[in-house]
C-alpha cells in the first residue's frame, strides 16, 4: 500500500529504463496534482463558510482572505429575518415526502416490472424508459399548465406530487430486483404468501442497500430542485424552498449583494447534503453502478 510498492508496479511495465529517482519524482508530482485538485474542489466551500461569518464592510474591502478579522453572525441573522427557517422546513418537508413516495411507489413499480409477469409489462417498461429521454426543460411550461388546471399552483401538492415517483427510481429498483434470486420468494410462495406479502416481507428487506441509494438520490434531487418550485410558487412566499429563496435573495442583476447572508444561505443549503454524503458515501457509488451499468 505504500509508495514503494506502486513504484515497483509501474517500473515493471515500463518499456524504457527509468531511474528510481525519476520515478520517485513523478510519484510526488502526481500526488501533488491530486491534492492540488482536491484543494481546488474544496476551497470555494471553505471560503464561503468563513466569509459567511464576516461583517459586510470587511467582505467588501477584502473578499479573498480566509479568516475573518471580526467574527459575526450578521449574515445568519439577516437570513433569519428573511424567513429562512421556513424555507428549511419547506425544503425538508417536500424532500421527505418525495423520498417516501419514491421508496414506496418506485420500488413497487420496479418490483412488478422485474418480478411479476403481467400483460403489457414490456411495453410499460419501454414507456417508462422513454420518459427518461424527455429533457426536463421541455416539461417546464406544460407542467405549469397541468398544475394550474389542478389548482396546485402555490401549494405543497404542486411541489411534491410531480416528484413522487421518478423513472430513475423505477429503473434503479427494477435493476436490483432482477438481480436477486427467485428462490427467495418461491419459498414464501410455497408457505402461502401472496404477492404483497412477498414484496413487503421478503424482497423489500433484501433491497436495503438499493433503497438507501434511492433515498439519497431522491432526497438530494428534491432538496436541490430549482425548476419545479420556480414554476409552482408564484405569489406565496411562505412556500419558498431553500434554492428558490436563495435565488430570491440574490435579487436582480447588478444589485448590491449582502454577501454574508447569501453565503450563509448557500451553506445552510449545502450542509445537510454534505453530512448525508459523508455518512452514506458508499451508497452513492453503489446506486450509480446499479442504475448505469449492471443492465
Amino acid at each position, binding site marked *: 500500500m505504500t509508495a514503494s510498492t506502486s513504484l515497483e508496479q509501474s517500473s515493471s511495465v515500463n518499456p524504457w529504463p527509468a531511474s528510481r529517482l525519476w520515478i520517485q519524482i513523478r510519484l510526488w508530482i502526481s500526488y501533488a496534482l491530486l491534492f492540488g485538485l*482536491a484543494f481546488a474542489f474544496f476551497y470555494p466551500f471553505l471560503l464561503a463558510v468563513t466569509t459567511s461569518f464576516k461583517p459586510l464592510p470587511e467582505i467588501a474591502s477584502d473578499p479573498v482572505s480566509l479568516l475573518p478579522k471580526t467574527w459575526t453572525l450578521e449574515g445568519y441573522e439577516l437570513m433569519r429575518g428573511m424567513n429562512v427557517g421556513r424555507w428549511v422546513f419547506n425544503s425538508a418537508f417536500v424532500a421527505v415526502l418525495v423520498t417516501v413516495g419514491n421508496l414506496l411507489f418506485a420500488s413497487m413499480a420496479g418490483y412488478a416490472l422485474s418480478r411479476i409477469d403481467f400483460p403489457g409489462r414490456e411495453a410499460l417498461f419501454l414507456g417508462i424508459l422513454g420518459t427518461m429521454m424527455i429533457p426536463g426543460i421541455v416539461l417546464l411550461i406544460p*407542467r405549469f399548465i397541468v398544475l394550474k388546471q389542478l389548482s396546485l399552483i402555490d401549494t405543497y401538492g404542486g411541489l411534491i406530487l410531480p416528484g413522487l415517483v421518478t423513472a430513475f427510481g423505477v429503473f434503479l429498483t427494477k435493476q436490483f430486483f432482477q438481480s436477486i434470486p427467485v428462490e427467495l420468494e418461491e419459498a414464501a410462495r410455497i408457505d402461502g404468501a401472496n404477492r404483497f406479502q412477498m414484496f413487503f416481507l421478503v424482497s423489500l428487506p433484501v433491497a436495503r442497500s438499493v433503497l438507501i441509494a434511492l433515498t439519497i438520490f431522491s432526497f*438530494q434531487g428534491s432538496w436541490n430542485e430549482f425548476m419545479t418550485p420556480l414554476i409552482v410558487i408564484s405569489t406565496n412566499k411562505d412556500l419558498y424552498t431553500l434554492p428558490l429563496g436563495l435565488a430570491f435573495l440574490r435579487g436582480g442583476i447588478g444589485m448590491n449583494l449582502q454577501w454574508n447572508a447569501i453565503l450563509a444561505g448557500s451553506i445552510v443549503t449545502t450542509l445537510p447534503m454534505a453530512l448525508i454524503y459523508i455518512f452514506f458515501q458508499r451508497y452513492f457509488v453503489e446506486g450509480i453502478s446499479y442504475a448505469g451499468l449492471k443492465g
Partner: protein
Amino acid sequence: MATGIKQLDREEAIAGWIFVTPALIVFGVFLVVPILFAFWYSLTDWNGISPPSQAQFVGLENYRSLLVEKGIRQADFFKALKNTTYFALGVVPLQTAIALVLATVVNQRYLCFKGFFRTAYYFPSITSSIAISLIFLFLYQKSGLINRTLEWITFGRWEPVTWMNDARGLIHILLEQFGVTLRGGPAFLHQNVLGLRVWDWISGPSVTLTAIMLMNTWTTIGTMMVIFLAALQDIPSFVYEAAQIDGANGWQTFTKITLPLLRPTLFFVVTLGLIGTYQVFDQIYVMTAGGPAKTTLTMAYIVYRNGFRNSEMGLGLATAILLFVIIFVLTLLQRRLTEVQD
C-alpha cells in the same frame, strides 16, 4: 431478463397492475399529459395568464417566428442556440476527459488516500446548483478569489477581468492578439445570417459564458468520474494481468484495454453531458439572466423567459419542442459516430 416461469394467471396480472398504478398515475399526469399539452399549446397564442381554453390556434406561427421571420425572436433563438452549442462544445469534452483521467487514477490499486480524493472530487456534484452559482458569483467578482489567484500565478501580470460582465468572445480576443478585427476583416463578416452577423457566430463563447462553463465543468466532473469508476471496477483484473504478462505499458493498457472496454460508458457519459449542457438553466438564472449583451442566453433560459417573463407560453413551448428535437438529433448523431468506429 424474463421471469416468465409461471403461466400467466389472473391474480398475478391484477397484482402487477396494482403495483404499477401509483407510478402510472404520476407519470400520466405529470409526464404524458404535459407532453401532449406541449405539442398542442405550441400551436396557440396562449399567454399563461388567461384560461388555457381561451387560447387561439395559430398553426405554426410560433415556430415560424423563431426560425424564419426576421426579428428579435429569431435573433434571440439563434443567439441562444449559438451560446448553448459553445457551452456544450466546451464543457462536454473537458468534463469527460478530466473525469476519465481522475477515475483511472483514483481506481489504481496502490494509490494512498483514495477515499479522500473520491470524496473531494465528488463533493460539488451533491451540492445545490443555486448555492454553487452564488458561491461562484462571489469568487468571480473583480476583486474576488479567481482574479487574485490568477494574479498570483502570473506574478501580477494578470489584468483582473469583470467575469460576470464581459461580452467579448474568446475567439475575438484571440484574433485581436494577431491584429484581426471586424473592422479590417472581409465584408462577409458583416453579413447577417439568421439574425446574427457571421462575425458573431464565430466569436466563440463570451468571457462570462466561459466562466460559467468552467464552473459547470467543475461541478459535474465528480458525477462523471463516479460513473467511470463504477465501470472500471467491473473490468475483471485478469484482463489487466494478461496485458501485463504480454508486456503492455501503462499507456498501452489504457488505450488498448481500458478505453475500448469503457466505450459504452463513454457513450453514456457524453450523452448525459450533452443532455445536461443543452438544458443549462439554474446557473444562468441566478448568475447572469442571459447578459451581458445576451451572450449567456441559453436555450433553456429562453424557454423560461419567453413563457413566464414575456407571457408567451405558446412561443416558449415551441422553443422547448425545438430544443427537444435538437437534443434528440444530437444523441442519435453521437450514437452513430460511436458505432462507426466499431
